């Protein structure tokens, strides 16, 4: 497949650019932060996104979706990344929808996917337990008792849990921490007895939660996929998540870079336009080159999902994509602040929001270290 958008995808990209820049500019995020909005996103904007059909963009038509593919979802995420648009799109329509599609049975899909598409179901993936992304080290347990399971444990950095109707919880039903065998996924109602959710204010003005499961009883029917054997499904869900968050990050990276180039074109110091300084020019040119590479891995990653790549092959693609984009976003946002100088240090200037966003997305589903280490392992080194 050529690594380019088709005409429909290009049209979608234009619509998305238009929507996000008009309805969800960076200043919306600032407002949400300053107003201390609980969900950390605008529910009105989320409704608009749902009305545009984007919540169901990857969902099969039989469940009410547009079945437009991940390349389509990717351009929406990328344009949303440009304005740092905050919404449950990633937690619900990327991670949640992928989990249901990949691991759900027919009943779960028919019941939940249409609700998700209509914006009536917010989902959240509860996976992390510490500073490092390490699914195989899951310690949250689910023990079987009769027709139900009892979940105990603590999940951290659970995106959008504060507004989620249900959580998809990664648990260990057998085996030792460190082993991929023995993992099981559960659908858990957020208001179940024993679930307590503490909302955090993150540096990027988004929401993340710590969720404690204290003897939470969940019926066996809420198992997503197979008991003890979730590892393969989970790997695919995460690969999709890693590639999609990279699309979001790419948009933010490009925007931060373009704003910086525009800034140094007009900023004067020592009676000289900053942008005439060759040292800055070369750094900008090198960053441009890195961003060109990032664009390529993102489109190739999204295409790989659409073409049905799965398993270790998709995991390798995902690690290529997220490590390359992660490095580039970190560099671009750091250079952006440095080149903006003192003004970039102030809260008043928007560029600082990109710096903060770079670091939280860096930790979403594995940082550069995780992905480079894994890529090397998958290369068989």
């Amino acid at each position, binding site marked *: 497949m050529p690594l380019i958008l088709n005409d429909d995808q290009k049209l979608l990209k234009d619509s998305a650019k238009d929507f996000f820049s008009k309805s969800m500019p960076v200043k919306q995020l600032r407002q949400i932060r300053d107003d201390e909005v609980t969900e950390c996103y605008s529910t009105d904007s989320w409704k608009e996104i749902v009305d545009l059909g984007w919540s169901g963009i990857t969902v099969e038509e039989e469940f009410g979706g547009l079945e437009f593919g991940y390349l389509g979802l990717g351009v929406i995420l990328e344009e949303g990344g440009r304005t740092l648009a905050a919404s449950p799109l990633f937690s619900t329509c990327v991670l949640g929808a992928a989990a249901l599609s990949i691991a759900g049975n027919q009943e779960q899909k028919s019941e939940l996917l249409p609700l998700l598409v209509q914006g009536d179901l917010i989902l959240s993936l509860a996976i*992390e337990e*510490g*500073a*490092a992304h390490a699914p195989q080290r899951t310690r949250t347990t689910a023990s079987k008792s009769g027709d139900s399971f009892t979940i105990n444990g603590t999940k*951290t*950095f659970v995106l959008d849990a504060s507004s989620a109707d249900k959580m998809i919880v990664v648990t260990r039903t057998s085996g030792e921490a460190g082993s991929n065998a023995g993992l099981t996924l559960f659908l858990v109602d957020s208001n179940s007895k024993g679930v307590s959710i*503490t909302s*955090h*204010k*993150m*540096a*990027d*003005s988004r929401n*993340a939660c*710590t969720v404690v499961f204290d003897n939470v009883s969940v019926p066996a029917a809420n198992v997503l996929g197979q008991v003890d054997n979730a590892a393969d499904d989970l790997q695919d869900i995460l690969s999709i998540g890693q590639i999609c968050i990279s699309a979001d990050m790419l948009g933010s990276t490009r925007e931060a870079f373009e704003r910086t180039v525009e800034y140094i074109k007009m*900023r004067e*110091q*020592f*009676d000289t336009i900053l942008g005439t*300084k060759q*040292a*800055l020019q070369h750094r900008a040119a090198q960053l441009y080159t890195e961003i060109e590479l990032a664009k390529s891995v993102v489109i190739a990653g999204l295409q790989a999902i659409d073409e049905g790549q799965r398993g270790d092959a998709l995991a390798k693609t995902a690690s290529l994509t997220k490590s390359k984009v992660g490095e580039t976003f970190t560099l671009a946002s*750091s250079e952006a*602040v*440095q080149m903006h*100088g*003192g003004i*970039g*240090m*102030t*809260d*008043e200037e928007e560029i*600082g929001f990109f*710096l*903060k966003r770079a*670091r*939280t997305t*860096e*930790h979403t589903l594995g*940082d*550069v*270290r*995780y992905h*480079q*280490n894994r890529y090397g392992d998958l290369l068989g080194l």
Partner: protein
Amino acid sequence: MANLETFKSEATAWLEENCPASMRKHGGGADAEFTRKKRSGDSLLWLDRCAEKGWIAPSWPTEYGGGGLSTEEHVALVGIMKKMNIPAPLGGMSLTMIGPTLLELGTEEQKKEHLPGITSGNVHWCQGYSEPNAGSDLANLQTKAEDKGDHFIINGSKIWTSGAMHADWMFCLVRTDPNVQKQKGISFVLFPMTDPGVSLSPIKLISGQSPFCQVFFDNVRAEKSNLIGKVNEGWTVGKRLLQHERSSIGGGGSSRFGISMTLNDAAKKYRGDENGKIDDPLLKLELTRQDIDTQAFALTTKRITDETMSGVTPGFATSMLKYYGSELTKDSAEMMVSIMGPQGLGRDDDRDNFSDDERGSTRAWLFTKALTIAGGCSEVQLDIISKRILELPTG
């Protein structure tokens, strides 16, 4: 060397007896930039005891309240304090910038008037250098000082003034002649921040803190007796002072943000296995490289100090130290939050979910972005190195 050994054992004994235990831990130096009136408890006690001993400024002459130590003794004292985990009683630009400048370039009257305020821990100074829109181009300053015989009347504005809200006095670059080349026509004056013409507007940073102000001057009075150097020759004084600033910004460290952990400790805590062993090879490598660079930089600072003490003029080496030191500190702060993962990325006001160390690390991460911008940005330091040290030609 016998005397030095005596000094060392006496100093150790005095420190052992006089430094309160609560100060002797990582983060004990958190109050270092506060003067007496902002302190209480052990922090105040420690300041007062040092003031009495002359050890707020151990190497300054005793007649101004300093400790009168020789350079060797001063170096030994710093080493002992470091080993005993004892923080300096006072930090900040009173000691590192205006003090040394007054000692070098002030008149006897000026020294007598201003230095005791510093060595007693009573007077806090702030710096009036940067102006809105000037950025690293310091000399492009517009704040005007009008000659009124025995005093100047100052109008204009300064920005990025660190600690202006706590400061008692300002040292300030002002334009006394607008009709000459921009580096000429600048004077270096001192005036009290209590002048009714001084007003402040805090600047909110990306870290959520507001440690800097924009300062406005509306007919502020500065006495001519508080002019350092000659009229219209303040740029020379200002540049000399900046060399002191550079070495101090280059250094820095995590303790000023109240972080009680080293990078390696944090890695073991947040990323280690049950035994604190780090099984992420990439992280281990990053920590190794950061440690190597930190050691190499510490040795370089020591080498250049030793060379200076042996009579070599450091000259523009301060630009190199400022450049590398500020980049290193910034990288270190970046690595700290990266080790902590999401816990290193809380919002500053969320005390419920993020520990003091975590919030301190987040603040340090965002604040240290300024280190490579302020005090002559990294790009300017590299320009200085290439032009002044390497003598590469100008286009």
